[in-house]
């Protein structure tokens, strides 16, 4: 049978959705789970072969494309653009355009903020509070670029403004790195996988962490003390996309999958499975009230306005960040 090889995040392709797709189209879907870095590195290793559809974040498309040429331009005519929230589609297209060609369309979006056990760590309201001695040994964040960006904002810098100026950016990152290094002794571990963090929060090994909103809301429903908090300096907004690898073998199926996924009723189900929001136009109406309520609780109007959306990452920036992160992990 026809096959679609999908490289995506956990929960983005739940089994029942896959089954429904197969039923409708006769196309089988082979799902491989991954994260941004591994998605790109896999494609880099294969020069864009091995998968037919991938879902990196929108800021991770242009740079790697420029360096490695691992994606194929998207034929927008094959997509039903009215299925997308127009503003989000436009923003994503802009961020993923290289040499006039579009390489990604939006799928799921969400934010990075703080998950706080309000009983054990009532005072945590911003990223810097993770470094507070009161919760020594019980905080956590990922040793990845979102942490750098978040702490930059929390300490009054604007990293996105310096994207174009590598030197200034490097200097800024050094400062952030120093701040994080100081914070490190407070950290139980740098979390890696979502469930790993959630388990630690559940068990009380960790009481406050920088993490994705969905995780916080999931825990909230289990334990009312745990809340997702939009930090004072602003949550970080991300958008995961659909992109087609340069040597994908089944573009038709890929477009079919995208269109299928963006159908409001399907998108709603996926959003519920992932616990995030979708770029599908009209899906929010179908979504259960709970997620909306949680979003409303975590994001008062001001906080929504304060969300910092990632712009596309220019090539070279990640190298600067990478070194800072390495130092953070290695230094003691």
């Amino acid at each position, binding site marked *: 049978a026809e096959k679609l*090889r999908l*490289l995506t995040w*956990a929960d983005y392709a739940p*089994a029942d959705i896959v089954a429904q797709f197969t039923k409708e189209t006769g196309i089988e879907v*082979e799902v*491989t*789970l991954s994260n941004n870095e591994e998605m790109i590195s*896999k494609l880099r*290793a*294969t*020069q864009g*072969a*091995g*998968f037919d559809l991938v879902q990196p974040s929108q800021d991770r498309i242009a740079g790697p494309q420029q360096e490695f040429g691992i994606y194929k331009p998207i034929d927008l005519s094959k997509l039903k653009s009215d299925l997308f929230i127009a503003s989000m589609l436009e923003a994503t297209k802009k961020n993923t355009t290289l040499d006039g060609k579009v390489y990604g369309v939006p799928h799921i979006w969400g934010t990075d903020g703080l998950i706080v056990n309000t009983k054990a760590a009532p005072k945590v309201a911003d990223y810097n509070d993770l470094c507070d001695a009161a919760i020594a040994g019980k905080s956590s964040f990922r040793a990845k670029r979102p942490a750098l960006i978040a702490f930059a904002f929390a300490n009054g810098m604007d990293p996105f403004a310096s994207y174009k100026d590598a030197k200034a950016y490097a200097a800024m990152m050094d400062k952030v790195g120093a701040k994080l290094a100081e914070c490190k002794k407070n950290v139980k571990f740098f979390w*890696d*996988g*979502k*469930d*790993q*963090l*959630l*388990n*630690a929060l*559940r*068990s009380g090994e960790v009481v406050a962490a920088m993490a994705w909103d969905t995780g916080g809301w999931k825990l909230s429903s289990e334990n009312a003390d745990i809340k997702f908090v939009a930090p004072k300096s602003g949550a970080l907004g991300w958008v995961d996309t659909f992109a087609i690898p340069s*040597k994908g073998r089944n573009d038709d199926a890929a477009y079919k999958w995208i269109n299928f996924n963006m159908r409001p009723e399907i998108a709603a189900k996926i959003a519920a499975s992932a616990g995030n929001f979708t770029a599908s136009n009209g899906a929010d109406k179908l979504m259960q009230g709970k997620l909306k309520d949680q979003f409303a609780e975590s994001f008062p109007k001001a906080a929504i306005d304060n969300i910092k959306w990632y712009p596309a990452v220019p090539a070279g920036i990640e190298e600067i960040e990478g070194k800072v992160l390495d130092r953070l992990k290695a230094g003691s």
Partner: protein
Amino acid sequence: MNRPSIVWKLYIAAFYIFLFAPLLVVAIFAFNASPFPSPPWKGFTLEWFVGTGSVFGKPGVLKDPIWLTSIGNSFKIALPVAFLAVLIGTVNAWVLERAEFRGKTVLAMMMLWPLVIPGVVLGISILAFFSRVANGLEDALNADIDMLRPGLPLVILGQLSFILTIATLIIAARLRKFDRSLEEAALDLGASRARVLRTVTLPFLKPALFGAGLVALLMSFENFNTTLMLVGSDPPLPITMYGQMREGATPAINAVSLMLMLGVGGIASIFALTSKAEQ
């Protein structure tokens, strides 16, 4: 010297407890009716083996396509690796023990070399090299050769690169013990060379061939470092386990681990029994 002191015996006992503690813990908590593999004990369940996911939100190993496919992938890798390791290992052993040619010591040293290369380095070097070959072929032929990209074939080659050394050593060790006058005796009694090989040499090597096959199977099943760098869209068991462990383990991993232990234990006992029968 031959009467061990009590301290020594205690040390031995402690050592074996130390050796098995982690495995026992893993095995026991495969049956814990809790979504996390940690104490306290919440009661006995088989949910993590055969559950459909209705109880803990995640299905048991035998119902979860992720685990099932990765177990399948492990076999898809291990069986060819074992087969090729035995086949090529036998030929290599023959070259090492029987052939006379200049540069033999160099070749023998080269065959040992993979053992002192870190697995990760082996992985990246093969990845980089085959990727260059694939790119070159792509430019030249305008066709992408999937086999040379990360994926099952490359994992098989990567594992083979060092498992072959082990297989060669095992078979060569046995071949070295072979008394060549047995072959001469068979010739002397009128057998043709092919017959000598079939009736005398191969039967003698059989335990080593079998042993090398099992060892290759086990090593392939548990290899992580090299595989990690070469895996494509079809991860074998260790890679999946690693992913799940970084995600925060559920007892499903314990269940898989227990199955793995039982499998390995089974193979090891077969091996022990056959080698005993051999004596």
